[in-house]
């Protein structure tokens, strides 16, 4: 690890941990900054994802401010560490909504944390734009809630078609993370898969703190499925795959939603994730100029390829900045303008909000081959 990066990251974490991130950095701007709050898991079990957001958002804000800010006013991000815990995300919502400087909020990470904070943003009348919340009941829950990652209502059937129609696997077992996102994700998949004539042999869950999957894998193995569908995150999937390999279980196909799509999956999972099927809304190799600008910039700054979590956070802050550029930093005006978004060119695809204020995404079929994500074309 590079010394300089290490130091800056270290300092950043210390600041967030101590809650000192709220101290404004000295700046040369004379105009009053525009404050945007971010509620994200900067520490705790989901820290890694929150830190991905932070990198993408910091980079985007740097670029916007370097180009003159929003109509001459710089953006300033106020981070709050929610640990993606519903208690903390709700407390942060109280804090953010009562701070009159703050124009809008981006966050939270998990559906559970976003939904816990939702009524508070709703009452106060502040936009809650979540980069990752994909629970189908979330965005419709308040006129102030917006989701840009797409919902499981769209992704579930897409994955079911992938498994059954493209791969021809009809005996399916499901292993999902036991939170709102995982439960919804598995429900949409199972519902669609059954309609397509698949047989669901068993459904098991795990908690976000679990690292030992040998027992549950041993159990699922006994059901002899052709395919296991795993709505989970890449960290657990990598562990799970390694443990599955060690147990000698190699005769079932593994598939999971786009949350698995990350270079980290390949790094952590090694050979054990070869043959894993997934989907993606964000592709670093996408030739579109906005994607290449983001990927090159991120790689240059952080020496790592951005993943989906960084990409959606990048889209969220840019969309927010663009909206404020049009209507100013008024909470109500931001909401109304955001709802009218048309073909915003995000790095995760075009953003058009539905009436429910979520987005229908355009997914790609992916498979891991020789340690790389490749397009599945058959």
């Amino acid at each position, binding site marked *: 690890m590079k010394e300089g990066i290490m130091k800056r*990251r*270290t300092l950043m*974490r*210390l600041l967030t*941990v101590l809650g000192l991130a709220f101290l404004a950095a000295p700046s040369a701007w004379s105009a009053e900054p525009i404050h945007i709050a971010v509620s994200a898991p900067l*520490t*705790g*079990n989901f*820290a*890694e994802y929150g*830190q991905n957001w932070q990198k993408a958002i910091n980079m985007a804000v740097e670029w916007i401010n370097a180009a003159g800010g929003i109509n001459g006013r710089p953006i300033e991000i106020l981070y709050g560490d929610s640990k993606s815990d519903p208690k903390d995300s709700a407390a942060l919502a109280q804090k953010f909504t009562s701070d009159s400087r703050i124009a809008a909020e981006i966050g939270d990470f998990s559906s559970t944390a976003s939904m816990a904070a939702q009524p508070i943003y709703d009452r106060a009348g502040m936009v809650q734009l979540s980069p990752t919340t994909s629970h189908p009941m979330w965005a419709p829950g308040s006129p102030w809630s917006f989701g840009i990652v797409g919902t499981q209502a769209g992704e579930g059937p897409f994955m079911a078609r992938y498994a059954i129609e493209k791969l021809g696997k009809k005996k399916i077992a499901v292993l999902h993370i*036991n939170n709102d996102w995982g439960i919804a994700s598995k429900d949409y998949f199972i519902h669609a898969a059954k309609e397509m004539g698949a047989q669901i042999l068993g459904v*098991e*869950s*795990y*908690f976000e*703190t*679990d*690292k*030992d999957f*040998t*027992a*549950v894998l*041993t*159990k699922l*193995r*006994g059901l002899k499925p052709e395919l296991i569908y795993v709505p989970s995150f890449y*960290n657990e999937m*990598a*562990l799970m795959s*390694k*443990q599955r*390999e*060690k*147990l*000698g279980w190699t005769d079932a196909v593994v598939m999971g939603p786009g949350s698995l799509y990350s270079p*980290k999956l390949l*790094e*952590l999972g*090694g050979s054990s994730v070869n043959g894993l099927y997934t989907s993606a809304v964000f592709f670093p190799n996408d030739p579109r100029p906005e994607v290449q600008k983001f990927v090159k910039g991120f790689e240059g700054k952080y020496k790592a390829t951005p993943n989906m979590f960084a990409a959606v956070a990048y889209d969220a802050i840019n969309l927010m900045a663009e909206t404020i550029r049009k209507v100013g930093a008024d909470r109500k005006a931001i909401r109304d303008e955001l709802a009218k978004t048309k073909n915003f060119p995000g790095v995760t695809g075009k953003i058009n909000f539905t009436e429910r204020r979520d987005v229908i995404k355009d997914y790609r079929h992916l498979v891991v081959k020789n340690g790389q994500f490749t397009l599945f074309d058959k």
Partner: protein
Amino acid sequence: MLVPQLINGLTQGSLYALVAIGFVLIFGTMNLVTFAHGEVYMMGAFAGALAMTVWHLPWFVALAMGMAAAWVLGFLIEKIAFRPLRTAGHMPPLLITIGLSIILKDLAVILFGAENRPVPSIYEQTIRVAGIQISVLQIVILGVAAGLVVLLRLLIQGTKIGRAMRATAQDHEAAYAMGVNVHRVFSIAFALASCLGGAAGVMIGIYYNAVYPVMGAAAGLKGFAACIFGGLTSIPGAILGGIIIGVVENLTVQFLASGYRDVVAFLVMVIVLVLRPQGLLGRKLRTV
């Protein structure tokens, strides 16, 4: 699937047992509880993981390094948190260890990052015994745990330092009067406990192929539970407690559902403690 689940449970339980023995050694000699034990385990795991990923050392060298790192850390914790407060009662050292556990966790985040750090696989092959597929790694882990327990028993039963530890545990003033340097015994017991925790951490890292800063919380809790379950001051009790918790967890996944694993494991523990408040192999009350 019953036999594979039993083996899964035994493997996991044997590592819980190593953590639990640490609590027994500390509680038995010093009559104190540490809440930083899980973090010592985590630091040992990181030391082992670094040895394997950065220096590409074989796993048994990594195990030795993880144990050595945990030993040193345990020794320092005893010096910092326990020795100056020897006469301060139970509460102050306890609170200090809670603080130390938070510091160690954050230190790990700063030093190694919040994300999972991969640990290379070893012994990926499986063997078939009577038609049942067994992972070679699980056999290795069980062997390591059993080996450490045997070494510990030899140390405690048949050597001068072991006798000094047992004597200190039972009446530290009498031991003091017999020329036993009880402060040194406390240090060694704490370091030895940490060392076993570090060994468990390294083996868990290898088993799950990952180490991460918050890994100590669950291990500390399960190890402490196994220690209480076994009777607080009994090493065989801690081993039995660890293995029962491991096996019950895995059988729960098989016959109920994955979500119930901790619930059932702790439920079994509560039931046993209601029926036998002194724990499985514990003695009724400490007399010292």
